[in-house]
């Protein structure tokens, strides 16, 4: 019994989805909880953004960007945060400049060379451990090393050894924060490259180093870039290292008279320490400025976040984009 030409009725019924109303009570409760957490997360995120938006717009003035912090009796009226913004830029720059090449080098070594095997395993474990160490511990360790006398060229001399607090010092320790992210990102990207790329290059008689430099690394540029941007995000958002290794001067105080070097050897502040110091937890207690600076900080971080997402999406095939969250691609982890 075959149908002839099929003029099937247009009104085909879509079958109903499984209704949770027929489930037992416990199951329905859990279903409701699932919805509650999902919606709750959206609400929390929205609340944070709106709250910071409202407060930020209320207290943000253009003059804040260009004036230096100035101590005065009426903290909420005086000075801006131009120095902290510059401070953030400097620290991020130093940290990234150290972490990026170092991270790519280590990742390449781990992925392409990895001999002797015990060393490779040890380095891998060390990097993973580094990713888990709290930034405050990194900070006190850094202080310990950097306050040795022979390193006073990085900051300034002090009673015992050197002061150990400067942009250089903070930047160096910050690079340790960003290092695992760069290494992880680059390694993952290198691991996703098909072996035939390498085989083709070796078959042409190229050495491993040449292959890495001219074939592999250019191919994983988006991965490296996203790792670097992730690292930058972590550096920008960190407060603990800044508090301990940058001195807590309101303005950026250079050391000596050499223009750039002096600033880098000097103390200062970043947006994060500025927010911390102006909050009730710090000395300032000028929460209007804290809100304004926090708003600027948040915008910077969100912009970076969007860049990472864009970079990662661009680097992946369209099928990969369906994956929910690319592991390790979450920004943050700043402490």
């Amino acid at each position, binding site marked *: 019994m075959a149908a002839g030409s099929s003029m099937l009725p247009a009104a085909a019924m879509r079958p109903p989805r499984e209704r949770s109303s027929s489930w037992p009570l416990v199951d329905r409760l859990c279903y409701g909880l699932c919805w509650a957490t999902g919606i709750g997360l959206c609400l929390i*995120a929205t609340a944070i953004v709106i709250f910071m938006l409202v407060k930020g717009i209320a207290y943000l003035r253009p003059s804040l960007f260009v004036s230096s912090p100035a101590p005065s009796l009426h903290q909420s009226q005086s000075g801006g945060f131009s120095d902290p913004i510059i401070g953030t830029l400097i620290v991020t720059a130093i940290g990234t400049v150290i972490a990026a090449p170092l991270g790519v080098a280590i990742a390449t070594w781990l992925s392409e*060379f990895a001999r002797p095997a015990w*060393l490779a395993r040890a380095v891998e474990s060390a990097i993973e451990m580094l990713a888990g160490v709290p930034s405050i511990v990194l900070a006190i360790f850094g202080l310990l090393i950097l306050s040795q006398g022979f390193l006073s060229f990085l900051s300034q001399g002090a009673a015992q050894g050197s002061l150990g607090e400067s942009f250089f010092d903070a930047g160096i320790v910050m690079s340790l924060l960003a290092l695992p992210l760069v290494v992880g990102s680059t390694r993952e990207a290198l691991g996703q490259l098909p072996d035939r790329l390498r085989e083709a290059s070796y078959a042409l008689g190229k050495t491993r180093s040449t292959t890495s430099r001219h074939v592999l690394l250019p191919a994983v540029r988006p991965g490296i870039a996203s790792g670097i941007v992730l690292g930058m995000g972590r550096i920008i958002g960190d407060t603990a290292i800044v508090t301990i290794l940058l001195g807590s001067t309101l303005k950026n105080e250079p050391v000596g008279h050499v223009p750039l070097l002096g600033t880098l050897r000097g103390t200062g502040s970043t947006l994060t320490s500025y927010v911390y110091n102006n909050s009730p937890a710090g000395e300032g207690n000028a929460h209007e400025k804290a809100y304004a600076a926090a708003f600027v900080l948040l915008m910077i971080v969100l912009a970076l976040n969007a860049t990472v997402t864009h970079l990662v999406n661009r680097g992946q095939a369209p099928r990969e984009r369906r994956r929910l969250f690319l592991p390790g691609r979450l920004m943050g982890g700043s402490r």
Partner: protein
Amino acid sequence: MRRMPVLQRGRAGAATDRRAELTLGLLAGVVLVLIAAMVVTVLVKAWPSFSYNGLSWFGSGGDVDTQLRVMRESTPLPGHGLLYFRAWPLIWGTLLTTIIAVGLGLVVSTFAAIFITEFAPGWLRRTLDPVIRLLAAVPSVIYGLIGILALAPWINEHLISNSRKQSVIYVVQLNGTDLATATLILMVMILPIMVAISANALAAVPASWREGSAALGVNRWRTIWRVSLRTAWPAIAAATVLATARALGEAVMLAMVSGSRGFAANPLDGLTFLFEPVRPLAASILQESEGLTIGPLAHTIYAMGAVLLVSATMLSLAGWAAKQPLKRYGIRA
């Protein structure tokens, strides 16, 4: 480690490769040495504090804040040296905040991950992706700012009654910066990691099992509970370990929000317990950071750092162990 193809190279090529291998290997070795040095130096600097106090370093005895002040001002308490320190209130605070935040976070993140993979309509699932990323990206100082300027005052006004404040006024002041506020915000901070890893793991459960369970007449929730969660629990365990490491190391937010007293919150106080201030180890280090140049105080602070370092290392190991079963299903986490 990938198996390396055997290369036939000319002598010049071999030399370049060897040079490159040496350079890169040395760099990697330097980082390894650095990290080992970190562990060693922190432990060495911390040793005097441990050797003076022995195992009672971890015990309780007296007020932590007084002991720290004593070190700062170099006026030793009668009968004790300058290094006298009993860290229990700080350790207790760390344990409380970490365990409660991770525990709550585990429950919430599991439900959220199930929601994302199973129940959320497409548009909501696509919205939750940037939401989770946003929550992960917010710096901890901003969480702390919102906590201390918005959440803590609200809790102070609406949840802590005057009578409750009076009941403990001789011991400690309740003002909204306390265990409850700190734990809530900490939970929000660690949620993104856990949700992301759990959701990926749940989505990787083979469709044949979910379909088989549906075909047997088991409703969607029960399918997730009995089949998907059971398969994905190694990933959830690994995510929990990661989240614990994060919670343990959080210094800034907790310094702003958990109350600045090294006070051991007392569960026997009933509900008031939630509103008592605590000060976890990492936050204590941050708040005492000016004292890093003073001898005894420095040793004590480095001792706290050593405890954190050792805990973080052990968690790292635990995380590695928890991830091993994952390879069975090819889940990258």
